């Protein structure tokens, strides 16, 4: 069994019905919300539309990791799967690597797909759309690791899910706020990239530090 097969196996644990939840949250928040409206406003400067588009991909990836990652991991935690994982030799994050990769890959494809789909319509340069790929990829991997770690760490992982949704509401308002605060577009993009890298580092570090007793006694 190679790593790709392991990832495909892990993808089976994903609760795809939770995608409906993501769609519902996105629909609810974007209904009358500024982001999509601003994005589709043709009168907006191209740079601003690029930024909104980038942020939209960021948000969709975040939401997908949150719903897919948390629901899959909560389900496995309830099935006591991790008790066995912690009796396996080697670092736990390596055993969980395929799980994180599977969640990240699905979220990346859909999140980045949003940028590509809307970006093609908006006539953005291909290189720019491509340039966003590593950022969304880093975000997806880091958040997936963080989501798995959070479920393992907290006794009531549903609270993590709730917290993640609340954070998403805040995230949704962020691009406008950044610009209102007088940040240049370059700075706003850099800030978003910085946020993605920070979340990724936090997630990967968190996954390395999950104490088994937190999981076993939950």
């Amino acid at each position, binding site marked *: 069994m190679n790593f790709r097969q392991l990832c495909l196996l892990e993808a089976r644990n994903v609760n795809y019905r939770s995608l409906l939840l993501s769609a519902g949250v996105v629909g609810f928040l974007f209904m009358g919300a500024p982001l999509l409206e601003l994005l589709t406003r043709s009168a907006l400067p191209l740079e601003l539309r690029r930024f909104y588009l980038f942020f939209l991909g960021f948000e969709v990836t975040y939401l997908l990791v949150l719903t897919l990652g948390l629901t899959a991991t909560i389900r496995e935690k309830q099935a*006591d*799967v991790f*008790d*066995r994982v*912690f009796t396996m*030799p080697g670092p736990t994050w390596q055993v969980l690597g395929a799980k994180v990769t599977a969640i990240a890959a699905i979220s990346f494809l859909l999140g980045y797909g949003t940028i590509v789909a809307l970006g093609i319509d908006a006539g953005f340069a291909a290189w720019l759309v491509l340039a966003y790929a590593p950022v969304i990829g880093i975000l997806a991997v880091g958040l997936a690791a963080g989501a798995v770690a959070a479920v393992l760490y907290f006794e009531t992982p549903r609270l993590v899910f709730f917290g993640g949704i609340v954070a998403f509401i805040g995230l949704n308002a962020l691009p406008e706020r950044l610009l209102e605060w007088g940040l240049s577009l370059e700075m706003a993009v850099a800030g978003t990239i910085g946020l993605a890298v920070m979340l990724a580092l936090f997630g990967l570090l968190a996954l390395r530090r999950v104490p088994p007793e937190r999981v076993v006694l939950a």
Partner: protein
Amino acid sequence: MHVSTATATENRDAQGEDGETVLEATALEKSIAGTRILDGVELSVRGSETYGVVGPNGAGKTTTFRCLLGLLPTDGGSVSVFGTDPRTDDTVLERVGVVFEYETLQPRWSVRDTMAHACHVYGVPTERIETCLAEVGLESDAHDREFRDLSKGMQRKASVATALVHEPDLLVLDEPMSGLDPGTQARMRELIDGLREAGRTVVFSSHDLQHVQALCDRVAVIADGRTVVETPLSKPVRVIEESRPEIEAEPAGEVYVVRDDDPPAEARTIDLEELYFSALGVEG
């Protein structure tokens, strides 16, 4: 259910000399949420033996196993698996197979997929899958079914088969008979017996004293987080009168003793039920 005995010698070589201590808990202490769960557990499991851990509900058997496997840090005492503390060096877990009282396999994976995953983690060829499935006697129509769709008995067999995939020197089974029908229990007994024949070290906990009596070389009785008795189940006892053999009891430590100046001893099987209730200080 069949376990090959052809590799018994090889297995014994892998485990070191028979009788060498492979798993040891010394004065183990553990509190969880302010409650003392373990308060002086002592276990010493030797190579190639089948070792039973018995005790009432809440005695601390599962917590002891979790400490031994490095899943829980201890508050006092020490743990040694093949001479190593698994919390400081988890590579020792390569030599250990574990089956929990509750099922821990991926619910949405087939048995074969779960075992292939285990083969990947332990770095063993996937040919082991068929061997282990045959060993536990899991019905062939269950091999490609999702774990959650299997009966309790099939799930337990799949769990044991997965634990055997890397040919562990030590197999730790927490309540392996729990919740199984008599037929599956009998097959599980056969399997454990076969593992013993093959020279593997098996440690298991159970509430069923008959199973422990039938399968184990030695046993520990745990109560209120302490080891009350640790003794072989068949050991030499002093014959006081030829016509009426008796067993001498000693209040502290091991219940049955033989002194150097005693008359020649003879092997006697200890009645575990009697030992259990006397150790717990309750009427059987």
